[in-house]
Each structure stands twice: as C-alpha cells, then as structure tokens.
C-alpha cells in the first residue's frame, strides 16, 4: 500500500494510485502560525489587521466584511496610499514556537506540512473596497488598482518569507475566490492583466524556497482561468465546483494541474445532511472524474464542514468508492 504522499503523487502524475485521495488527508495544516489575522467568532464583530470590519452574525455559517459608509476602508482606490496600511510582520519572541513544534511533530514522509494563507489578492481588493466598487475600479482606475495589487503582493511576499524562514512548509493552501458558481468575476483577459504576474511572483517565491505543493482554493467556476493557474505554478486547484466541466479539464490539463473538489458542499453540507445523500454525491463524482489528476473533496476551503459530521462522513464514502473502483 502506498503512503498518503506516494498515492497523491501517483494521482498527480497520472500514474498508478492504489486508492482515491481522501479530501485533505495529504495536508497537515499548521493553524498555530502567528498569522496576525483577526477574525470574529460567531456573534462577534471585529476590526481586522487591515482595518476591515468583519461581522459574523448569529445563525450564519460564515463571517462577512462590512462595507457601509461608516465601515468601508477604501472608497476611492486612487487614495489607497492614504488608507491602506499593511499590518506589521513583527512578532513577539516565541510567537512561532507552537507552530514550529506542530510542524516538527508531523510525519513528513507521509504528509505535507502546510501553511494556510487567506484572503488572497483579489479578495483583499473587495475586502477593502466592497465588491461592486472593486470590480468597477478595475475598469475606471486600472493604474491605481495595479498599484494596490502590487502593494498587497509585497505584503504577501513578506508573509511568505516569514513562513518559509520559520515553518519550512512543504505545501501551502492559499485562498482566493475568483468566481461565482457559474462564472469568473473578471474576464480571463482582465484576470491575467491584474493577477497573473503577482501570483507568479508569490507562488514562484514559495517554490524557490522549498515548498513542493501549491494548493489554491477557489470554490467557484474558474475553468477559463486554468491556463493562468498552471502558469502561476498552482499544483492543485481545490474547490472545483461541478459547474466546471471537470472531466474535460482533466483531459485537457491533467498532466499539468490536479483538480480537487467535485463534491458540492451545498448538496451535502446542510443541517439535514444524510449519509445517503453524501454517498450518492461521492459516487457520482468518483465515477465521473476518475482516478488520476482528480481528488474527490468537498469544496470547503479547509478540512472540515459547516455542519458537524459531514466531512468525516464524506471520507467514509470516498473509502467505499476506493473499494468499489480500485
């Protein structure tokens, strides 16, 4: 039997895996990293490290940035230098100790020590400005948007430097949602103009500093951005929704990038979830998408689920499909 890592490599190279990869099993997320992120708990409102107000109301499954007139950080992107201040990268002595200890405890022959990075460059633009305002600014103030994205890129590179120096991750899981369920937010040409070079720098830096695996999360349609993803250096696109034609993408790009997802969280992850529902969804995706260049997974951006038990129940069904199809 192959190790988790060996099996993943067989999947990613179109070789001979002996089972389906079970969702995030190959990543050991180190969540004790002193990221400096300020996030609300359920029922709370916080001002995060960039000055963005984030609210998580009771009864909701996630938090939201608040962009009304009283809370928006950046109304006019041409004034970004005045209002956007990157958080400090300084950490008190010992801040990394727990994360380093957690990384050292990982069996690196079997799993990838993984750092988590979020939100990404595109998400940062709309966290700061609000979605509509950010999207219009790509047209109306392209120079200022380029400057802002360059600034955010420099921050990401500083953070990347701290991660590789302290943690020596083998993998990163980097979030940046680039689309809705049915479309990308930006046209492929606009996406390329504003984000390709920045991500080439960021992911290139990680690759040049010992990171073997770049996992990028975008739970959306983004099939039209796959050539850019490959050029950026993404190894695994996580969060691939069924609205993308996954079998076609595997056929066209599988030897260059692996697709992780295919299980619609909206179908399986809700208060009335059932094992049968999950079984049907996992069976469908495993049968449709095959054994190589594909990792069956929910589209959640971390190992886990919104409703307790769903993630584990999904693993059980992936194992069943291994028995059936391998």
């Amino acid at each position, binding site marked *: 039997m192959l190790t988790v890592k060996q099996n993943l490599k067989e999947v990613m190279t179109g070789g001979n895996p002996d089972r389906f990869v079970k969702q995030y099993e190959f990543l050991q997320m180190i969540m004790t990293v002193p990221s400096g992120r300020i996030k609300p708990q359920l029922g709370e409102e916080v001002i995060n490290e960039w000055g963005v107000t984030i609210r998580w109301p009771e009864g909701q499954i996630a938090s939201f940035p608040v962009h009304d007139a009283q809370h928006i950080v950046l109304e006019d992107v041409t004034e970004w230098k005045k209002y956007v201040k990157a958080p400090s990268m300084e950490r008190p002595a010992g801040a990394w100790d727990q994360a380093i200890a957690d990384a050292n405890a990982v069996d690196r022959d079997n799993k990838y020590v993984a750092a988590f990075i979020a939100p990404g460059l595109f998400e940062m633009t709309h966290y700061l400005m609000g979605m509509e305002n950010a999207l219009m600014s790509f047209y109306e103030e392209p120079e200022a948007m380029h400057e802002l994205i360059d600034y955010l890129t420099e921050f990401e590179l500083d953070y990347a430097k701290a991660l590789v120096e302290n943690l020596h991750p083998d993998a990163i899981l980097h979030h940046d949602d680039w689309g809705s369920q049915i479309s990308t*937010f*930006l046209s492929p040409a606009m996406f390329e103009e504003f984000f390709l070079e920045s991500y080439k720098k960021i992911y290139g830096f990680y690759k040049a500093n010992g990171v073997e695996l770049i996992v990028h999360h975008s739970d959306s349609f983004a099939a039209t951005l796959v050539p850019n993803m490959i050029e950026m250096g993404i190894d695994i696109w996580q969060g691939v929704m069924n609205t993308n034609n996954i079998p076609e993408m595997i056929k066209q790009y599988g030897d260059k990038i692996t697709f992780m997802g295919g299980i619609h969280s909206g179908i399986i992850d809700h208060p009335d979830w059932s094992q049968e529902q999950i079984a049907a969804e996992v069976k469908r995706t495993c049968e449709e998408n095959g054994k190589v260049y594909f990792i069956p997974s929910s589209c959640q951006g971390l190992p886990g689920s919104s409703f307790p038990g769903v993630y584990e129940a999904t693993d059980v069904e992936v194992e069943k499909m291994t028995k059936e199809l391998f």
Partner: protein
Amino acid sequence: MSKIQEVKEKVEIGKTKLVAGLVQEALDEGNAPGEILQAMVDSMSVVGEKFSSGEIFVPEMLIAAKAMAKGVDVLRPLMAGDTSASLGTCIIGTVAGDLHDIGKNLVSMMIESAGFTMVDLGVDVPAERFVEAIKENENVTLVACSGLLTTTMPALKEAVETIKASGLDVKVIVGGAPVTPEYAAEIGADGFAPDAGSAAVKAKEMVA
C-alpha cells in the same frame, strides 16, 4: 452617427465619464428625454444578454449600469411626473437569514435599467417586510426575492407564500445560486431568473 446612437454605444461599453455629456448633447439636438431613456434601456438589454451568454462579466455590467445612471441623472428633472416609461415599482430583497447582497444588487441594477423604480429592502428581509413594502409604495408591480444559501431556501418559500397569501396584485420573481426553475414553480413564484441579465428580461415580460 446620431447623438442618440452614441449614447447607446457609450452606455453599452460603460463610458461613465462621457454619457452624461452625450445625453445633454442629445437633448440639445432636440431629442425627447423619453427617446434617449429608451435608447439607454435598449443598451442595457444588450448588456444583460451579453452577461447571460458569458460574453461579458460583472465589471462590464456594473460600469454599463453606472454609465446609464449618469445619463438618467441628466434626464430625471425633465421627466419628473412622467410615468409613461416606467414599468412600475419593484421591491427587492434577500430573504430572512441570508446576508448575501452582491447578486441581489446586480439584479436590482439590471431591473432598474429595464425601467422599474427600485425599492431595495437590503438583506435578511423577513417575509412580512416584503408585504409591508408593497403596501407602503405606489404602483408596485413586481417583488424580487433572492436566496443564496441552501439553508435559506425555506425562507424564500415563506417569503413567496406570505406575499401570495396577502392577496396583493403583484408578481413575484425569485433567484439565487441554489434556486432552480422547478423550485421556483414549486413554491408558487411567478418567475425565475438564473442571472442578473435574464432577471431584467423576465421582469419586463412578467409585468407586460
């Protein structure tokens, strides 16, 4: 090219800084405000179609709507009291328990561009609030309810049922990522649209 044609073209490609001036020039040439407005409505129909077909994306739709709004600002004082071009008032909101507003805002913009007066109730709107808003506003012809989460589908159903149970003479259109035409029909909605561009087309059809 006629000024009116120029207005039409510039709205379509979202020239937000040019449209107000062009509308003024079109007026100065003697074109009727209603005619200029109709040209912009027609442009937005094209924009909506291109968005629905995947030819353009959200930023292009947003700047086109913004360009039209700049033109409408010029026409508004000249058209005060003239309701002939209006398709009535549309109440819009995201249903109770759901805080997603981006999709709803896009739909609102596109329905407004089609000729409706919009009343936006925001997000997390209880079913009864839709009914109150219908009663509070004049000439309400349409209510648009948005739901983005599978967990808030029951709230969408409740909103539609409450509006229908009120007996008020309005049409109800629903939409949002998990909503299907079948679900819309099942909960008693009069219409469904899969995206903002189609929502504008459907809204016009529903009140025609």
